C-alpha cells in the first residue's frame, strides 16, 4: 500500500508515465513469461465470465439518478478509484479490470433488472453495488439465481447471509453495541430516547439497541419514535425529548429528514455539547447537507471516519480527493465501497480463479491490510471483521475520533438474544 501512498501525490502526467513504464516489463516478458504472469483464461474462468487474456469485466450498480444519488455517488467514486488503483498496480491475475456502470435510478425493480443484464448479457465477474437494503433485497434473488458475486457496501440491519454476497459494511450489532457500551460507561448514561425514520433498518437497529440497553446495560428506553421517510417537522418529538430528559438521544433518521432534525434540534435550544446524542446514520456525507454548526458535538458510531490517522487512510483520502476534487468528503459507506474491488481482487488471487463458486469458497479468511479503516478480514458468514469507532462531529464537518474498540468486532448478522 506504500506504493499507493506515493501514487496519490504524483502529477497525472508522471502517473501515466509510470503506469506505462510499469507495463513495459510485462510486455517484454510476454514470449517467455506470459504464462507465469497471467494464467491462461481457460484455467481461471471455467464458467464463461467476461474474462479475456488481458481484461476482466466487473459491474458497478448504483443509483446515479433519483433520490438515492445523494448517497450512492460516493460509493461509485470509491469503486472507480479502487479499480483504477488495482489496474495501476497490475490488475487481477495479470488482467486489467474494465467496468460497466449501470444506473439503478433509485428504483428497486430497476436494480434487479440491471443486475440481471450485468450477469446474463455482460457476464461480469462481480458486481460492486446496491446501497439501500431495499435495492439489495431486489438484487439478491438475481445474483443467487445466476450465480453472481455482489459486494455490498452499506451498514445495514443484518438478518441476511448469502453465498453470493460479501457485505463490506457493518451489520447492526457491529455498529451499535460497542457504541452503546462506550456511551453508557463514559457518560454514565442510563436513559435513552430512540428516534428513527420509519423503515426496516432503523426499526431493526433500534430493536437491537433496546435489547442491549435493557438487558445488558440495565438502562431504560424512555421513548421510541418513528417518522415517515422525508418528514420535515420534528418539533413535537423534540418537545418530548425535552420532557423526558434522556441521558442519550439515539438516532437513526435518514435522508433529507436528517437535515431537518438537526436544524430544528439546534433551533429548539438543545445544545449538543451538553446533551449527548449518538447517531448511527450521519457520516461526513450527510454533514455536508446538515451543516457542521448544526451538529457539532454529536457522537456518531461508525467504523470509518475521514479523519482517521493512519498511513492507509491518508493515502486513500489524498488519492480520492485527487480523483474527485478537493471538496469531496468521504463517509463510512464510501470507504466500505472502496473495499469491494480490493477484497474481490485479493479473493480472486487467493482462489487463483474468477469462478464465482471458488471465490465464494475462498472468501472467508481473506485479509486486506491496506484498508483505510485499518486491517479487515472476511468472516465465514461473508461479513467483515472490523473495528467499531465513535467520533465526535466538529464544526468543519469532520469527526474527531473519540473511541475505538481494541480488537476487531466479530460480525453477527443473526444475533442471538436480540431478535
Amino acid at each position: 500500500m506504500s506504493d499507493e501512498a506515493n501514487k496519490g501525490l504524483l502529477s497525472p502526467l508522471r502517473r501515466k508515465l509510470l503506469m506505462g513504464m510499469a507495463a513495459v516489463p510485462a510486455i517484454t516478458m510476454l514470449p517467455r513469461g506470459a504464462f507465469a504472469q497471467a494464467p491462461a483464461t481457460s484455467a481461471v474462468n471455467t464458467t464463461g465470465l467476461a474474462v479475456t487474456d488481458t481484461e476482466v469485466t466487473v459491474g458497478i450498480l448504483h443509483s446515479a439518478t433519483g433520490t438515492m444519488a445523494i448517497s450512492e455517488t460516493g460509493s461509485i467514486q470509491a469503486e472507480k478509484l479502487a479499480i483504477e488503483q488495482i489496474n495501476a498496480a497490475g490488475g487481477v491475475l495479470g488482467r486489467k479490470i474494465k467496468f460497466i456502470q449501470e444506473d439503478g435510478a433509485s428504483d428497486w425493480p430497476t436494480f434487479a433488472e440491471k443486475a440481471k443484464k450485468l450477469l446474463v448479457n455482460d457476464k461480469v465477474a462481480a458486481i460492486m453495488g446496491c446501497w439501500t437494503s431495499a435495492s439489495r433485497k431486489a438484487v439478491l434473488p438475481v445474483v443467487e439465481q445466476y450465480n453472481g458475486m455482489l459486494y455490498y457496501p452499506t451498514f445495514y440491519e443484518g438478518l441476511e447471509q448469502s453465498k453470493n454476497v460479501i457485505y463490506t459494511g457493518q451489520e447492526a450489532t457491529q455498529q451499535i453495541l460497542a457504541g452503546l457500551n462506550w456511551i453508557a460507561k463514559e457518560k454514565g448514561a442510563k436513559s435513552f430516547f430512540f428516534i428513527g425514520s420509519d423503515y426496516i433498518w432503523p426499526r431493526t437497529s433500534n430493536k437491537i439497541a433496546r435489547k442491549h440497553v435493557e438487558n445488558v446495560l440495565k438502562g431504560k428506553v424512555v421513548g421510541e419514535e418513528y417518522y415517515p421517510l422525508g418528514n420535515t417537522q420534528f418539533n413535537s418529538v423534540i418537545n418530548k425529548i425535552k420532557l423526558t430528559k434522556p441521558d442519550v438521544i439515539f438516532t437513526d433518521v435518514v435522508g433529507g429528514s436528517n437535515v431537518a432534525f438537526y436544524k430544528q434540534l439546534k433551533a429548539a435550544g438543545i445544545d449538543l455539547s451538553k446533551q449527548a446524542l449518538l447517531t448511527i446514520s450521519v457520516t461526513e456525507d450527510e454533514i455536508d447537507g446538515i451543516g457542521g454548526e448544526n451538529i457539532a458535538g454529536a457522537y456518531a458510531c461508525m467504523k470509518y471516519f475521514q479523519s482517521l490517522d493512519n498511513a492507509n487512510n491518508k493515502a486513500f483520502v489524498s488519492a480520492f480527493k485527487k480523483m474527485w476534487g478537493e471538496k469531496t468528503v468521504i463517509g463510512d459507506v464510501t470507504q466500505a465501497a472502496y473495499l469491494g474491488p480490493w477484497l474481490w481482487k485479493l479473493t480472486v488471487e487467493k482462489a487463483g480463479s474468477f469462478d464465482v463458486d471458488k471465490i465464494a469458497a475462498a472468501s472467508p479468511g481473506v485479509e486486506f491490510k491496506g484498508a483505510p479503516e485499518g486491517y479487515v478480514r472476511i468472516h465465514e458468514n461473508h461479513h467483515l471483521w472490523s473495528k467499531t469507532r465513535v467520533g465526535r462531529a466538529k464544526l468543519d464537518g469532520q469527526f474527531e475520533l473519540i473511541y475505538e474498540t481494541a480488537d476487531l468486532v466479530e460480525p453477527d448478522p443473526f444475533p442471538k438474544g436480540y431478535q
Partner: protein
Amino acid sequence: MFGDYSLGDLGSIFVMQGFAGLILFSVYVLMALGLAIIFGQMGVINMAHGEFMILGAYVTWMTSNFFQAYLPSLFAGYFFLAMILAFLASGALGMLVEWALIRHLYKRPLDTLLATWGLSLMLQQAYRSVFGAREVGVELPQWMLGSLHVTDSIEVPINGVFVMCLTVLITIGVAYVLYMSRWGRQVRAVVQNRIMAGAVGINTEKVDRLTFGLGCGIAGVAGSAFTMIGSTGPTSGQLYIVDTFLVVVFGGAASLLGTIASAFSISQTQSTLEFFMSGSMAKVLTLLAVVGILMLRPQGLFALKVRK
C-alpha cells in the same frame, strides 16, 4: 403518561407544543400559498411546485456563498436579499414555463398534471447536474440560529418565529394583491369567466402569465425560508409536494381563506397527535381524517360558488 412530571414541566411543554403547532401551521401556509394561487385561480395542477421551491433554496445557498466570499461584513443580512432573489428567480422560471408549456394546455387540465410532473423530473436532474447530487448546507447568520430563552423551560426557536412572521407578511401581501388591487380583480375575473374577461378588454394571457409567475415566486420564497428548517438537495422538493396538495385540496381550491383554515386544522391535528403517539401513526390518523372529511365534502372546506 404525565404522572411523573411536575406541573411546571407540563405547562411549559404545552406552551412549546402549541408553538410547534403554530410553526407547522406557518410552514404549511407558506408552502401551499403559491400552489393555491396556481391551482386555485388557474386550475393548473402544478406537480413541479416543489422544484420551484428548491430553486429558491438553491438561490439562497448561492447568495450565502457569495456573501461569505465577497461581503462577509454584510452576511448577517444576506437572507433578506436571498429571499427577494429567490422570488425573482422562481417567478421568472415560472413565467417562462407558463409561456413555453402551460399556456398550450389550459383547455386540458389533466394534461398539465403529466406535463408538470415531467417538468419536475427534468428540473430535479438539472439541479443534480448543476449543483451535484449531494445535499448542500446553507449557512445561516448567527442571529437566526438557536432559540429565544423565555423561561428556564420554555424556549422558542428563532427560525420558527421567522417563518411565522414571513408567512403573515406574505399572506397579507397576497390577500391584498388578489382582493384589493386592480390586477387581482382582473385575475378573479379571468377565473370566473375567461371569455367575458377577454371581451371587456382584460389581456388574459398576460394575467395568466403573471399569476403563474407570482405563484412560483412565492414557492421560491418558501423554499428560501425552508433552508432554515430542512434540507436542500435536488429531490428535496418532493418532501413538500404531498403535504402541499393536501392543504390546498382540503381547503377547497380557489379559496385563500380555505387554504389557511385547512393548513390550521391539519397542522394542529398533526402536532397534537404527534405528541401522544408516534410520528408515523399521527400522520396516518391525520390523513384518514382528511380523507373522511373530503368524502363528505368533496369540494373542500371552503368552496367558491362559480357558475358552471
